[in-house]
């Protein structure tokens, strides 16, 4: 079986990893309870969306 002839340098390894960065998930602030929440999603903290849309009863998990 073919095998690598030379070990990759740290620079080479690190250059490969330049595209591996994770992005921070976007957040917005719930207008009802001012907790951070995912944009365009029901607020997991208070269960509201667009004012009255109470989708789930807020319960402590």
């Amino acid at each position, binding site marked *: 079986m073919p095998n690598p002839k030379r070990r990759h340098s740290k620079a080479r390894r690190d250059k490969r990893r330049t595209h591996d960065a994770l992005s921070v998930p976007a957040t917005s602030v719930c207008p009802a309870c001012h907790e951070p929440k*995912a944009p*365009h*999603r*029901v607020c*997991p903290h208070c269960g509201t*969306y667009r004012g009255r*849309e*109470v*989708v*789930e*009863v807020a319960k402590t998990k």
Partner: protein
Amino acid sequence: MRHNVAGRKLGRTTSHRLALFRNQLASLMAAERIVTTLPKAKELRPIAERLITHGKAGTVHARRMVGRWIPDRDLIKKLFDEIAPRHAERPGGYLRIVKLGNRLGDGAEMAVLEFVDYDPAKKRGVAAKGEAAAKPAEGAPAPEKPKKEKAERKAAEAKPERAETKKAAKPTARPAAPAKKKPSMPKKIGGS
């Protein structure tokens, strides 16, 4: 190549997919609100809205067209007599999809699919009452509520992700969820 082919396959064969849609449509008509994954909700909404439009026509033919999707005559009756008249003035857009965020187990994005006139306060009362009545009322009178519950239970057995209101789903979902998790846990431990 599948260029320009509409619709998702949802990882199912055609018959499996159609059966899923039928079950979900029945649950949707019974509970007027279902929680499911976002792609399923997106696939389901146009089908369901077409059924409402059929319901507004109110003809025997329309009833049969709806019967292709909803396997329950009582629910078809409810659709024609209750749901469709409510939306008589609305030119389409009877359903709303609200995104809920990602599910814990597999990270699937969940969503609520509900009628735009859905009133949570009203429905919760009905669901709680129906639940209490449902257990002893298998062959009893009071035709409306037990029927509804029966259909919901039927659908719950067929498809666990579906789940109507949180409250109605709890009794059926609770025993199912831990049973599901258990087989996967030992596997993970043994594998690593």
